[in-house]
């Protein structure tokens, strides 16, 4: 979802900029000799532009800070996780304490590395990235995610770690709650 919004918003903003540059580039052929009045008008427009940007970006900047993925205990999943997966990254494989969880209940991943930096990226059955954290020797990063549907999810390495980085994958089976074991 975030990915589509990011893409569409980027396209809109980049197109808007392209239109403005094309308009100014296109009208640049005729000369308005006296620059001072034009400059005064442009400074007024700039002040408006500044406040428009503040009013547009400001609320977005604040709103997007309301749901951060860092603090597992206060994440949107809420509550104590019934399912915990300890994950350790090695060059070039993942070691997971379990590879079966159920949908609809939060899963806490406790991720660390035995050697170099890795990235723990969880991909849904459609190969959409749904959650990630960096993996670093000497640190355990916790990331909490609630799988909203069953299926086979993949874990891909999201930080370059050497010659077989692209092969560093694992699978997590997400079943229905009644399949709990």
């Amino acid at each position: 979802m975030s990915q589509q919004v990011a893409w569409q918003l980027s396209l809109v903003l980049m197109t808007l900029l392209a239109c403005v540059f094309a308009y100014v580039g296109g009208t640049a052929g005729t000369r308005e000799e006296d620059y001072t009045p034009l400059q005064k008008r442009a400074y007024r427009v700039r002040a408006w532009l500044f406040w428009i940007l503040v009013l547009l970006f400001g609320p977005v900047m604040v709103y997007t800070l309301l749901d951060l993925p860092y603090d597992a205990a206060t994440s949107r999943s809420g509550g104590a996780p019934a399912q915990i997966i300890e994950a350790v990254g090695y060059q070039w494989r993942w070691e997971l304490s379990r590879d079966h969880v159920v949908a609809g209940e939060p899963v806490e991943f406790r991720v660390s590395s035995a050697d170099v930096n890795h990235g723990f990226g969880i991909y849904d059955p459609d190969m959409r990235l749904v959650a990630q954290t960096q993996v670093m020797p000497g640190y355990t990063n916790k990331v909490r995610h609630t799988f909203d549907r069953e299926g086979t999810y993949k874990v891909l390495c999201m930080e370059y770690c050497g010659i077989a980085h692209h092969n560093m994958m694992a699978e997590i089976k997400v079943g229905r709650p009644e399949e709990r074991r």
Partner: protein
Amino acid sequence: MASSIPTPTPDRGAQAGVVAYLVTTAAVLLLMMVFGLLMRLEQAEVTAMGPGWFYELMTLHGAGMVGIAGLAGAAIMWHFLRQYVDLSEKIFLANLAFFLVGVVMILGSVLLGHFHAAWTFLYPLPAKSMGAWSQEAAAAFMGGLLVIGVGFLLLYLDIARAVIARYGNFARALGWPQLFGRDDGNAPPPAVVASAMVTTVNIIGLVVGASILTMMLVNLYVPGFDIDPLLAKNLIYFFGHVFINASIYMAVIAVYEILPRYTQRPWKSNKVFLASWTASTLMVMFIYPHHLLMDFAMPKWMLIMGHIIGYLNGIPILVVTAYGTLMIVFRSGIRWDMASGLLFLSLFGWAAGAMPAIIDGTITVNYVMHNTLWVPGHFHTYLLLGMVTMVFGFMYYLGKQSLEAGDGMLDRAAFWLFAVATLGFTLSFLYSGQASVARRYAAHLPEWVPYARLGSVFAALVIVAVLVFLLRFLGRLRFAMRRAPRATSVRGAAA
């Protein structure tokens, strides 16, 4: 208010050193672009070089592009700054010598020693290759970066000396008396303000970079000398972020200096301009945690700081530099040629690339976009269509044979090919990023291959256009050093 010279007065020709920098830029840039294309072709399953070669090319492409962006930016800054302060040409050339020595060390490390820990050389990967490269290869790579860094540090120290000799201190060079007091019209010109900013941040960045490289070199041979991986990552990204962004801030001096000559309108160092450069000085240093948003072990306040400054950082780019460019070009009667056209295009590229970059710096978006191809999508937009396009504009400017010299059909075709192909190339990265395609993968999953194929086509077209730009520049080298007016006069202006 101080401003860049708005009249078609003769430009000082480029010093031999500037020409040497730009010829080096042309050679390295083209080679690194070919490496980039080969990487895309591998992901597209058109070639089958294997992961060893892929990651070696990736390491060279990253290190080479960052280094050459710094070198080309320095050439532009030095060329224009020497109008205002007394710079040492010997130090300028010494930096090039250090650069070339560093390049040889890096090439040896990668091509002979098979080092491929990426240009980011994240600790402790260089020391943990699983037998893929030797300790010596890792030392040659990091040593090469260190040598290049020493050269740049020498250059910036000389610039600092020259700026202080002329303006007394950096506060004056940044225009602080005019910013915080009454604007007496004596603020330094934009080229000096930008140079003071870049010198300040790059001296700090290079010292930080040299520190972590030295620590990692010691660790290579004395493994007991342990480094905290998170501290190492902070130091590497601080240095890397500052250095690559400084390359844009140096290259944009070409826009400040050249476009006013084409439009015969001044680019003023007024309060807004000075405020934006002072803000950028601080923001470019404090924004770097946005590279570590997925490092949950980082202090949360630093990550939130990265998120917030990511938004604020867009304002000077959009409201001051991009808007300033639009202002002086609007109804200016400018006669477009390759130099002015590329400089104008470059500001679009910088501003356009800032959009997906700001979005990526949003923590909740980064959670599902970090280290996907979205990242090279936005940085190729503001570096290739922004910073590198400024360099091409500068090259065309220096190579102008006469005041009214026009451009050939081939150049104009290359301009439009470059603009369209670069946008296609960067959008293919961005689209891949929104489809969750992971970056730095030697082999792509079957469903990702079509994106790589499309990207390869655009990358090849970019190289065709760039080949025209660079061959044209090399063919006009003899004009680059002449003292002559270069900016074509505006329509309707008195001769």
